[in-house]
């Protein structure tokens, strides 16, 4: 395990963890916005996107952020000011709490939580409260409808997400995300020990359900009814401007990044490479350099998954509200329940 020349005191470790958490949330968010929202969307719409700020417009995001920070902080006269101010912070805070359980390497984790997956799913559901009260406190019918739609949608897609994860937990035999990574890199499939056992191979149905549910939890098109700019102006965010809008905006893409991290851990093998490549037997034998390479592997898997999310977002038109609810309750939940049953039977039988 880790061998450091100097002993870092507890407060120093805590400080490093906070800094690491900020980097792990904000760096992917910025990258996602530039690569996908600015460049990929422009490419798909046959235009160049931002080109002026920095080489190929790479500094555009900094310009946008400083613009938002300078804007006036407007609170509608009839709004419930205190709750209006708290709401975006709840949404962003839940994203930061989410990254706490994500392991980025053999020793590069923030906390080694036994019930890691369960924690991530529970904290993911807290942001609903932020969105709901943002819509309510704005004193605006569009915001209010957007908030209610968001709550209905997030509750409906929370369930298939939890149920899809259960299959992975059964196969890995642990809810600890670190143990799930180790399980995928030490087991093997069809005797091919050089690919390990990424659970996307055995849990492909679960992976599909999880990614669809993530798409809906992030309210990305085709699940963007809560924002639905052609019906509701911009849903629960209608009255927000300046840095409070910025917080919602960062929250949206940071959450996309963190959920992609979690999906890559659950289904794609996380930070690890198959341990047999280097003759490692267990987590303790993993070399120290994986703490540097691991985060890079995670980042590339995250970019791949977010790329898929964004590709779907830019390609498909919006669902109708009743289609959305029916899809969650009548298709995704029964399929994921069947998935759990089959996984459990195979786990016991094989």
């Amino acid at each position, binding site marked *: 395990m880790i061998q450091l020349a100097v002993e870092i005191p507890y407060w120093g470790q805590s400080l490093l963890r906070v800094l690491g958490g900020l980097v792990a949330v904000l760096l992917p968010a910025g990258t996602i916005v530039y690569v996908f929202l600015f460049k990929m969307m422009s490419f798909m719409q046959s235009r160049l996107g931002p080109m002026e700020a920095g080489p190929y417009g790479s500094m555009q995001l900094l310009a946008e952020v400083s613009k938002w920070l300078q804007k006036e902080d407007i609170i509608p006269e*009839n*709004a*419930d000011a205190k*709750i209006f101010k708290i709401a975006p912070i709840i949404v962003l805070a839940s994203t930061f709490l989410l990254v706490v359980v994500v392991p980025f390497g053999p020793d590069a984790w923030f906390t*080694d*939580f*036994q*019930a890691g997956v*369960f*924690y991530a*799913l*529970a*904290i993911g*559901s*807290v942001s*609903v*409260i932020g969105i*709901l*009260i943002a819509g*309510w*406190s704005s*004193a605006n019918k569009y915001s*209010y409808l957007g*908030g*209610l739609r968001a*709550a*209905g949608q997030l*509750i409906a897609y*929370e369930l298939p997400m939890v149920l899809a994860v259960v299959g992975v937990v059964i196969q890995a035999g642990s*809810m600890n995300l670190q143990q799930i990574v180790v399980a995928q890199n030490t087991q093997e499939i069809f005797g091919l020990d050089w690919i390990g056992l990424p659970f996307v191979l055995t849990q492909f149905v679960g992976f599909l359900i999880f990614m669809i549910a993530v798409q809906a939890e992030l309210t990305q098109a085709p699940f963007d009814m809560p924002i639905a700019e052609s019906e509701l102006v911009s849903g629960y965010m209608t009255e927000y401007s300046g840095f409070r809008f910025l917080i919602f905006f960062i929250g949206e893409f940071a959450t996309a990044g963190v959920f992609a991290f979690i999906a890559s851990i659950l289904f794609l093998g996380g930070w690890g490479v198959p341990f047999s490549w280097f003759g490692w037997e267990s987590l303790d034998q993993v070399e120290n350099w994986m703490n540097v390479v691991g985060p890079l592997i995670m980042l590339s898997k995250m970019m791949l998954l977010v790329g898929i999310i964004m590709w779907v977002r830019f390609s498909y038109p919006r669902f109708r509200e009743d289609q959305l609810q029916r899809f969650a309750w009548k298709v995704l939940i029964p399929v994921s329940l069947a998935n759990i049953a089959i996984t459990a039977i195979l786990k016991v039988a094989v």
Partner: protein
Amino acid sequence: MSLLAVLASDVNVAQNVGFYVIAAIMLFAAFSVVSTSDVVHAALWLVVVLGGVAAQYILAAAEFVAVSQVMVYIGAVMVLFLFGIMLTRSMIGSDTDVNNKGWGIGIPVALLMFGVLAYSVIDAFDNTVLVDRSEVQIASTTTAISDGYLGDYLVPLIALSFVLLAAAVGAIVLARKD
């Protein structure tokens, strides 16, 4: 034990300080739930109380219970509360009719409940000092819970899930008009 003796003792000082800070926040939030005149504010103060309970579980090294608390009470029950309040009484601002005439009866009931709980806790544990558990023991609590309910407590678990299923089906039957 006198206050000085408590201050001088060295049992898990950081956890004890955390316990009292969180408990104070929870008490304040609980009073706000019943004293505020806005239903949505009351619901949000209740979120603070329930979050405080989860934090206390974390301090007691019961992380699985803490996460369940967040998932069930904050993520599901409170969201449904807020959803219901906003669908039915969506006005911003104070509701004057939140407190009804019988609020005074609540005080003796609350005191009685507090007395029963305090008596049962003191009666059961008295002066027992819990041992400081090792990292390994804390790490295996989640496993212990799953072993418990899929082993010794399997029948009660299944019975309980049938009760909940019946309740869910009954709610749907009552709610559907056709």
